[in-house]
């Protein structure tokens, strides 16, 4: 208390608010984290979109290379993950837009939003891929 000069150069360790590991994991909390995780994934996933467009602009060999890579099982896994992250983040975002209007804050509603986002995101991703595989005649 008395030593002002030392406390100014070296800030006192204040108690911090409890962080993630203190709380019991809950669906709404996991969904909040997932929104951020999918957002960051989509951020780096934008490289894929840029890559495909540049390959298309560069020439047929480049595009064939990108397409071959996309058709491997690993490529398909990454692209399915991309699709899922996109829909999950989209539904999570719509949830946030609803909250921005001041609606949907009842605990029950929040819980249902979380479930709908989770199931809806997966559902839309699977639906897109089923339609996609149908288009190329693989189903």
């Amino acid at each position, binding site marked *: 208390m008395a030593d002002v000069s030392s406390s100014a150069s070296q800030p006192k360790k204040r108690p911090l608010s409890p962080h993630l590991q203190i709380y019991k994991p809950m669906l709404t909390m996991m969904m909040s984290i997932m929104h951020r995780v999918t957002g960051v994934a989509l951020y780096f996933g934008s490289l894929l*979109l*840029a890559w495909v467009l540049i390959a298309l602009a560069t020439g*047929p060999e480049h595009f064939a290379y990108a397409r071959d890579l996309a058709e491997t099982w690993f490529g398909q896994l990454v692209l399915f993950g991309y699709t899922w992250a996109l829909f999950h983040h*989209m539904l999570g975002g*719509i949830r946030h837009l609803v909250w921005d209007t001041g609606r949907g804050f009842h605990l029950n509603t929040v819980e249902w939003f979380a479930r709908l986002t989770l199931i809806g995101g997966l559902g839309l991703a699977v639906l*897109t891929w089923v339609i996609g595989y149908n288009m*190329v005649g693989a189903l």
Partner: protein
Amino acid sequence: MDMRTPLSKVRGLGSAKEGADHFWQQRLTAVANIILTLFLVVMIVNMLSADYSTIREYIASPLVAVGIILLVISSTFHMRLGMQVVIEDYIHAEGTKIILLMLNTFFSIFIGLACIFAVFKISFGA
């Protein structure tokens, strides 16, 4: 000589009027992204079995090209704002934070420009 204290100089200037800008732009681009992303997904699914030249022709058609460019602008803007918040939340060392915030802007602009240039080249170029 200006005899006013620093506080009195600032007082009365009001706010910078940008308090809600980050929030608002994040929402604005979010709404645009919903529509434009759905368009992109439908477009990609439609082109899955098309060959190289068909895909190029498709992307070169004005409405598709404009759609992709709008999506690229809106989504790179949106992702830059989002990553900015993530960096500000987790990186507390001032130097590292500023460098990462700069890299965030560089990356977003690079992705945006690369995509738009590619669409232009597909549309106009040889």
